[in-house]
Structure formats: structure tokens, C-alpha cells
């Protein structure tokens, strides 16, 4: 006769099973505790991740540039619109001034930028071949093409990796540039003079990926028949075939990057440009302007971190309270375990073990949520805020937070563990219920 229980292992018992079932028995308080601990960790790690992405974005988008020069505005402004496509330039720099500064003996190289147009939410940067030879990001990494070649014709366009991925463009895809818009839907388009993709860049993880690059002449070409910012009247259009090199000589640019031959000359050159007589210009040192910006942002970072640490504290205390309140109900349970041979160490060990399970599940859950959040929200943060979630998923700081959480939880749980041991000693076996 086969009995119901033959061969069944469901009755096997272990400390893990005992602790798990005990936690499951106090389902609600267990879930709330894990939830609040998880929440605090996710908050801390999210703040950390955003900060890291922002910092990387700021410090890695441009390197090896000594000065960014534009029409007079604030130093930060000229960097924000030139490098990060944030805000709008108000004035241009005449090509004469650019050429004069470029010709100075201190200058090693320059990269001119002409901005203002866009394509389906991405900005269009008009520049020259110096961009491909000199532009550095992160620590001295050069721009590389995944496919094709730099622009050579007037209507050639090289696109950043994000542009290619988002819009699904390949070599040869047509591109119509929108007038005066660097983000959002276009109102006026240069559909009479379409561009053609000739090159696609490798991803850089910086704002570089989110732009299209054309030649300065190409920029000139799409605006050649425009009169003071408005589209040509019927019959006044100039056909692409009838353009001449003469007509396409750029007359102005928006800003330019500059590298000196010797770093000692930066400050002198900066003063010289700022005092330039022909037109009002500003030369900004990227590192200085960005660290100012970063300092003002780091207050927000500190406030957010402070809040997250408070949430962690709340999480830890809710665990302490949950375990402490359960202890009284569990005195009988402890007496039973004692009668069966449990030592006082076993009793406090069980409490510690339960905390360990709570904390570990909170940590694992928080890491899982963090990874899922990054997968889901990463592209959104990238396209809406230019935050690139680059590098390791867990930074030293995040591992530090996890460690703090883990050890403070174990430390705090010593309180109920010792208390359980004391009451088990006092209660013995004859606890009256």
C-alpha cells in the first residue's frame, strides 16, 4: 500500500525553511520591510547613476579644446549651445574674425561650428574636415566612422550613431534639413536641396552621437536664396545645379573650438579675444565653465542623496520595528525551539538569519529594479536629457551603498537578536501563554 507521504520530501526541515516560513507567516510586515529597504536603495542608486551620467556627459563630451569662442554672451552659454545643444546662440561670428583668430601664431587648430538647423529632432552641425581630424572626446578619443567617409560634396551628410539608429538611416539615405529647429517638429524645410548620408559615426556615448554633420558650404547652400531668415519667394529659388563655389563661401559661423600650441598662452589669448575690437566675442575655457556649472548642480545632488539616505534610515528602522514587534508573539515559538535543543545562540541566530534574508532580498530586488529601469528608461534619458548611461552598471559608489545597507541592517538586527536571546533565557520552557 502506498501511503500519502511515502517518498515525499516536503517535510524536510532546515534553518532556511524555518526562517522563510516564519517570514512568510508575517507576510505583510515582511513585504513592507523589503519594499521600504528596496525603495531606499533604488533611490540612492538612481540618484548616483544620474549624477554619474551627467558628470560623464559634461566631462567627456569635449576634451583637448582650450577655448570655445562665440559672439558675446555668458561663457557657460557659449559652451552649452556649442557642445550640448542646450539653448540658442543669439549672434554669429563673422568669417573674417574667425580667420583672423585662426591665423594667430598661438593657435594650433580650430573647429568651426555653424548651428541653427535640425533634422527630425536632431541638430545639424555645419563644420569642416578639421572636425574629423581634431575633435576629441573622453580622454583623447577621436571621432571614427563606422561606415562611409567624411563629407566631401556640398550635400553630403555624416550622421551620429544615435541618429542612424533612431531614424534607421543607411549610407545613401536622403536627409531634408529643417530650418531653424534643432529639436521638435519642423516648420520650414529645405526640401528643395536634400542631403545624402555618406558616413555614419561610431557611437561615442556623448552629444556627438545626436547630431548630423554637413560642410559649412552645404549650410550656405541651403540658405543661399533665403532673405533675412525667410524662405525665398516663388521664382526666386536658386537650383542646386546652378550653385557655384563663389556663392557658397561661408560668411559667418556660430562658434568655434580652439586649441593652442602651448597651454601657457590660453589666458593671454582668451583676453585678446575678449577684447577683440572688430566685434564683441567671448572665449570660454570649457573646464572652468563646466566645473562652475557642476558645482551649482552638485547641491541638488547632495540634497537628493541626503533624502535617499534618510529613506534608507527609514527602511532600516521599519525593519527594526517589524522584527521587534514580532518578538513578543514569537516567545512561545522560541520556547518550543529551546525545548527541542536550540541553544540561545540558535535563537538569536535565527533572528539574524531572518534579517539577512530580508536585507539580501531587498538588495537583490533593488539591483534587479535598477537594471530594468536602466534598460527601460536609458534610451528615454538619452534622447530627452542627453544622459548617456555609460560604463559599469554598478559603480564603486553604488556598491558602497549596498554594503552600507547590508552591514547596517545586520548591525541593527543585533538589537532584536540579543533581545530574543534574553527573553528566551528568561522564559525557559514554562512560558505561560
Amino acid at each position, binding site marked *: 500500500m502506498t501511503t500519502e507521504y511515502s517518498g515525499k520530501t516536503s517535510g524536510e526541515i532546515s534553518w532556511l525553511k*524555518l526562517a522563510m516560513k516564519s517570514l512568510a507567516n508575517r507576510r505583510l510586515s515582511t513585504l513592507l520591510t523589503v519594499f521600504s529597504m528596496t525603495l531606499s536603495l533604488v533611490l540612492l542608486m538612481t540618484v548616483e547613476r544620474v549624477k554619474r551620467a551627467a558628470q560623464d556627459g559634461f566631462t567627456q563630451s569635449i576634451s583637448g579644446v582650450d577655448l570655445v569662442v562665440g559672439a558675446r554672451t555668458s561663457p557657460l552659454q557659449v559652451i552649452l549651445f556649442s557642445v550640448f545643444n542646450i539653448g540658442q546662440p543669439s549672434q554669429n561670428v563673422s568669417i573674417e574674425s574667425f580667420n583672423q583668430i585662426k591665423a594667430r601664431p598661438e593657435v594650433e587648430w580650430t573647429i568651426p561650428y555653424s548651428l541653427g538647423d535640425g533634422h527630425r529632432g536632431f541638430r545639424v552641425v555645419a563644420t569642416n574636415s578639421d572636425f574629423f581630424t581634431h575633435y576629441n572626446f573622453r580622454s583623447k578619443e577621436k571621432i571614427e566612422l563606422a561606415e562611409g567617409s567624411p563629407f566631401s560634396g556640398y550635400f553630403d551628410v555624416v550622421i551620429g550613431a544615435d541618429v542612424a539608429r533612431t531614424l534607421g538611416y543607411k549610407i545613401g539615405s536622403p536627409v531634408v534639413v529643417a530650418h531653424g529647429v534643432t529639436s521638435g517638429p519642423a516648420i520650414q524645410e529645405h526640401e528643395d536641396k536634400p542631403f545624402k548620408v555618406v558616413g555614419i559615426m561610431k557611437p561615442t556615448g556623448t552629444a556627438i552621437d545626436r547630431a548630423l554633420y554637413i560642410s559649412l558650404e552645404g549650410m550656405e547652400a541651403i540658405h543661399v536664396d533665403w532673405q533675412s531668415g525667410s524662405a525665398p519667394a516663388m521664382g526666386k529659388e536658386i537650383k542646386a545645379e546652378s550653385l557655384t563655389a563663389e556663392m557658397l563661401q561661408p560668411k559667418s559661423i556660430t562658434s568655434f573650438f580652439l586649441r593652442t600650441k602651448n597651454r601657457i598662452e590660453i589666458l593671454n589669448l582668451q583676453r585678446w579675444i575678449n577684447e577683440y575690437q572688430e566685434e564683441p566675442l567671448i572665449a570660454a575655457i570649457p573646464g572652468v565653465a563646466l566645473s562652475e556649472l557642476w558645482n551649482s548642480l552638485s547641491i541638488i545632488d547632495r540634497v537628493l542623496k541626503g533624502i535617499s539616505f534618510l529613506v534608507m534610515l527609514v527602511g532600516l528602522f521599519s525593519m527594526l520595528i517589524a522584527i521587534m514587534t514580532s518578538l513578543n508573539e514569537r516567545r512561545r515559538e522560541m520556547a518550543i525551539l529551546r*525545548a527541542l535543543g536550540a541553544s540561545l545562540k540558535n535563537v538569536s541566530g535565527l533572528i539574524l538569519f531572518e534579517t539577512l534574508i530580508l536585507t539580501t532580498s531587498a538588495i537583490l530586488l533593488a539591483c534587479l529594479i535598477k537594471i530594468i529601469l536602466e534598460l527601460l528608461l536609458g534610451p528615454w534619458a538619452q534622447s530627452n536629457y542627453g544622459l548617456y548611461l555609460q560604463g559599469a552598471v554598478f559603480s564603486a559608489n553604488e556598491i558602497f551603498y549596498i554594503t552600507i545597507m547590508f552591514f547596517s541592517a545586520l548591525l541593527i538586527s543585533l538589537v532584536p537578536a540579543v533581545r530574543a536571546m534574553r527573553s528566551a533565557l528568561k522564559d525557559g*520552557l514554562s512560558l505561560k501563554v
Partner: protein
Amino acid sequence: MSSAIEISNLKFSYGQHAILDIDELKVKAGEIVFLYGPSGSGKSTLLELIAGVLRAQGGVLKIGTQNLAELDSAGLDSYRAGNVGYIFQSFNLIPYLSVMENILLPFLFQKTQPDLNEVKNLISDLGLKDHINKPVTELSVGQQQRVAVARALIKKPNIILADEPTSALDYDHREKFLKILFDLCRKNNTTVLFVSHDRSIEKLFDRSISLIEHNRVQFSPTEVS
């Protein structure tokens, strides 16, 4: 016949408050003993001393050949795990474990593995066959006490200590319960020390002992600990 429990000159007090002072008391191996006395006379304290949860301040307490005074607290814990089966008055079981898990719980505290055949036999002897995977909260009080018996006997202890386990049962169930318990203990030559204030079941035991007669500490009902 060898002694299962041997007490001489055993003294125990909580601080200044003397509870037990027993000149001599012996229980033979395999004997089923009824120990009676009113509430507060120190019955439970004596059980806790024998279980090795409490430590006497003086005298000799030998279980088999082992003098408990010679064991450190870890030694007492493992002595208890291996030699003593304990049955409480009520609420014997961990409420969130199944019947089977409750029965196997003693194996947490010693590294031996349960013999599944013996477990099976014990469970059917106690009439718990159909309940082993149930949550213990679904059982009647009588069934719960039988689970407690199974758990106390599962490791074949030398001694069963029972602290009024029948007080929650009515008379018929009480007799039935005791008969099952005694049968199983006789089969394994297990000594039973059963404490109660209810002398109506006294006749079912091999021998009955009055704690008041053995305890030199004067019992005063007002001093209930």
C-alpha cells in the same frame, strides 16, 4: 535496574527565592511516573532542570550516567536535543510549519538524519497519517497533542518530559492520549516523567510521586512564580 533520573540534594532558587530543595528522588529506566503537586510547587522548574534549560545551584542531577552539572551550556543544549523529548501543556507546535515539518523539527539541532520508515510507523501509530502535509492550525487540539508526541519521540529520547499535556483535553481523550503515549514509550523503554495537578489520571501510571513530599522548600500558594 539502572536509574534514568537520579536526584540527590538538588537545590534551585530564583535569586533569594528558593524553589526546590529535593533530598532524593529516583526514576528507573522505562518507568512511567506521575509527578503531582499544586500549581507553583516547582513542577515546571524541576522539568526545566531535567531538560537542562535551567541549572541547579547545588546537588546532583544525573540523567542516565550523565551528571548535568558537568556540562557547559552548549553541552546541555546538545544533551537536550539528543536525550529529552518535551511535551508542553498546549501550543506545542510552530503554527506556520506543516505537521511533518513540526515532527522533523528536532533534526535541526542534531546532525542525524530521520529514518523515514520509523517516521512513517510513528505517524501511523499516532493516527496522523492523513494529516502530515496539513498546516497544524487545521488540526484539533487532540491531534495537535499527538503531533507533539510524535515530535518528542522521533529521536528516541531516553526521557519524555510532559508538562500537563492533557489539561486541554476532555476525560475520554485524556485516557486515549495517555494510552497511546505509554504504549509507544513502553515499546522503546522510554522513561516518562509526567507532571500534573490533576490526580484523576494518576491510576494509569506505574508510580506517582508527590513533589511537596520531596521538596524541602515549604510550599506557600501565595508565592506563585
